[in-house]
């Protein structure tokens, strides 16, 4: 942090970690300096007039000046020119941040969902964030530990964003970049990291209860480390296929399907009902009916969540139709059976 960045307040911004973010900071410095000068002219002028022309006697007269064409022309034209500069500069920076249609060296499909992100690499590596562990050990804190998404430094990375439910927005302050994840649409978030390190992802489009909790961490590493990380993930994936159905179900529950965002397994209430002791027990519904939770009921709840609404809960879950395979439903049911 040097004196210049302190004065221009860029020291408050996270370290610019991508090629594009340095350009944003330059624009910011220009805005800040030109803004400060304008502020000093306007407010300084005002303060001087207040003191200089203060009414000292009750009959003090004022000058009769109705207008001044030259002054008025200048103070319309000069701000206009400055604003056009800011507009054009902003446009060129914007163009670099957007880079629509440009392919990345690394491409990752990012799916947003209340309240988690899924990152899927071309070779099927999948990262879900946040995890279900707490970020801080403060008992009042609601923040969850972000999972780490690794990308190589110096390459062009393209994230292809979409959402499964409501609007979310993918924001990395250190990259000075942000893009909404819109259901039914694909948007892109392209960047070229130049700094190694861990960078926080936030969700900036209000998306309900745990909006402030949708974090992830992007770790920028060098090429070899990235390759090693990928190899390790692929090996771990292969290992996961040898697991039993309940374990696979558990991985789905906590991982890519993100059920744990809304359902607990220890009886506590999050958004939806807990799964503790669900299987084989009676469920009461908002319309007064009830059933015993069995395979058919659980399957229906996953595919058509609004068919039966558990009493006391909002109809907040969206359908997993098309996102979940038949075997996966079976695995999840096996996992639920273990939650006595």
């Amino acid at each position, binding site marked *: 942090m040097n004196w210049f960045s302190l004065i221009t307040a860029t020291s408050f911004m996270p370290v610019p970690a991508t090629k594009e973010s340095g350009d944003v900071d330059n*624009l910011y410095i220009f805005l800040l300096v030109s803004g400060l000068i304008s*502020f000093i002219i306007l407010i300084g002028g005002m303060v001087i*007039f207040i003191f200089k022309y203060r009414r000292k006697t009750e009959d003090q007269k004022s000058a*009769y000046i*109705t207008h001044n064409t030259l002054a008025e022309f200048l*103070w319309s034209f000069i701000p206009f020119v400055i604003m056009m500069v800011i507009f054009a500069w*902003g446009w060129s*920076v*914007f163009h670099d941040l957007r880079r629509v249609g440009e392919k990345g060296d690394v491409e990752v499909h990012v799916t947003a969902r209340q309240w988690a992100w899924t990152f899927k690499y071309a070779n099927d590596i999948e990262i879900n964030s946040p995890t279900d562990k707490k970020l801080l050990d403060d008992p009042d804190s609601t923040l969850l530990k972000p999972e780490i998404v690794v990308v190589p430094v110096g390459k062009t990375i393209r994230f292809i964003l979409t959402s499964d439910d409501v609007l979310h927005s993918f924001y990395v302050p250190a990259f000075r970049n942000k893009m909404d994840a819109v259901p039914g649409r694909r948007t892109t978030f392209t960047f070229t990291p130049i700094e190694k390190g861990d960078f926080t992802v936030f969700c900036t489009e209000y998306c*309900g209860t745990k909006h402030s909790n949708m974090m992830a961490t992007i770790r920028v590493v060098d090429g070899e480390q990235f390759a090693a990380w990928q190899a390790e993930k692929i090996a771990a994936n292969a290992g996961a296929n040898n697991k039993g159905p309940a374990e696979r179900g558990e991985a789905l529950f906590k991982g890519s399907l993100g059920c744990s965002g809304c359902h607990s397994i220890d009886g506590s209430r999050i958004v939806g009902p807990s799964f503790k002791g669900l299987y084989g027990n009676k469920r009461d519904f908002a319309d007064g009916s009830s059933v015993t939770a069995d395979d058919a009921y659980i399957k229906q709840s996953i595919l058509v969540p609004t068919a039966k609404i558990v009493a006391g809960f909002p109809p907040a879950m969206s359908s997993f139709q098309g996102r979940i395979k038949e075997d996966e439903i079976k695995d999840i049911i096996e996992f639920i059976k273990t939650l006595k």
Partner: protein
Amino acid sequence: MAHEQHNYLNHQKGIWSWLTTLDHKRIGIMYFVAIMSFFFLGGVFALLVRAELFTPGKTLFSADVYNRMMTYHGAIMVFMVIVPGIPAIFGNFVLPIMIGAKDVAFPRLNLMSWYMLMIGAAITGSTLFLENVDTGWTFYTPYSSIKTGLGVIPMVLGVFIIGFSSILTGLNFIVTTHKLRAPGMTMNRIPLMVWALYSTAILQVLATPVLAITLLLLIAEKTLGVGIFDPQLGGDPVLFQHFFWFYSHPAVYIMILPAMGVISELVATYSRKVIFGYTAIAYSSLAIAGVSFLVWGHHMFVSGQSEFAGVLFSFITMLVGVPTAIKLFNWIATMYKGSIRLDAPMLFAIGFMFLFTIGGLTGVYLASTGMDIHFHDTYFVVAHFHYVMVGGTLMALMGALIYWFPKVTGKIYSDLVGRISWVFIFTGFNVTFFPQFILGNMGMPRRYYDYLPTFTELNQMSTFGSWLIGTGFLVGLYGVIYALLKGKEAGNNPFGGKTLEWTTASPPPHENFESTPVLTGGPYEYR
């Protein structure tokens, strides 16, 4: 005087005579009482929201309760306080008097607008007891349409009705300004407050129906499952944003133009000087009103709209900046070689210029696409719009209150109390919202219940500031009560104003003037 003067306050007696009154002055007072109660409620929510953010993690409430309070704070403040605020209260009271009319053009419609605001507010408010809403005041789909409770329906229905109140008031003001001016009062001689209200009225009439239709579509989707905004039903979620901001961007000018009108009056009166660039100020209001219809997309630079759209909206937004800057220059030029007195209303006018300049300049940052990408939906934006809307509108509202208080009630508002209130509001305001610019720089998103520990100190400062603002408004309220009970008699023109309202009695007679005034010159002829 032994014989009590006959005025609009004692013209008729009893609560019923108020509730059925067709007198614009009484309706203005009824708006004042209603809107100030909403303001109190919105303020309590603001203080609770800020209190929750005092520490990271849970401070007082759960995330759900926080989201609801944030929603009610925003919705109440925007739809029930700032949008109707100055036009409904002071517009109603002073507009007809300022142009030398006996009343507004449609007195019955005027009363009906008040009732519509009350009905709308009651329906929206009922959700507080039935089913709380947690969508934020912007009601973005598909969250509002499929992912949250049914309380959204009465909530937006209430806002819909409030919208009609706003449309009717606007219509009334347009016709009044055109048809009821006193002899000699050409359009180029009407006070700037009237110009501001007139431009606002155009916006109200043209923009609000779009909001109304949008809210109806939202209700249709939520109750009937018609696919308009929800992609699962074949709708487009971003369409809602287009509709919403097509209203809500002009709406921010509905919020600020009347405030600018007030500032023009205050600066002229307290500098005892003819306003500089009358025509520029008057027509820049119209220019702002016109151009503000074409800039809504600057709220959507990261929504996935095309790069071309983003750039176009950025360009047009820059154009609105120019007439806004012109106004500031004109006010300051009015003070040049004036005879300035820093009474409480003038302090509020100066506070307005200070805060509005910061709000306006940071608006330029946000209008610049490349920069907005970083700041959009962070605390930088929260700080920006509070500087503009709260710093602007509330400062003007307080100034207007103290300035016209003698005209309305016949009593003087204590200048000392006004100054104390100003000190609290002005400092508190900066302590609350300035740190939020820095939070935005650091990357703290808005509408966050919980945050990383690095953001703690600035949030604490901000919460502390909110207590100062709260205190300032309580002092202001005390001033109103004190002046009503113990205020000195005002006389007709205590501050040496030049516009027509200062030529009639305080409080004015039932029909505003004893005899119709005739105009021979412009509104601010201090020679």
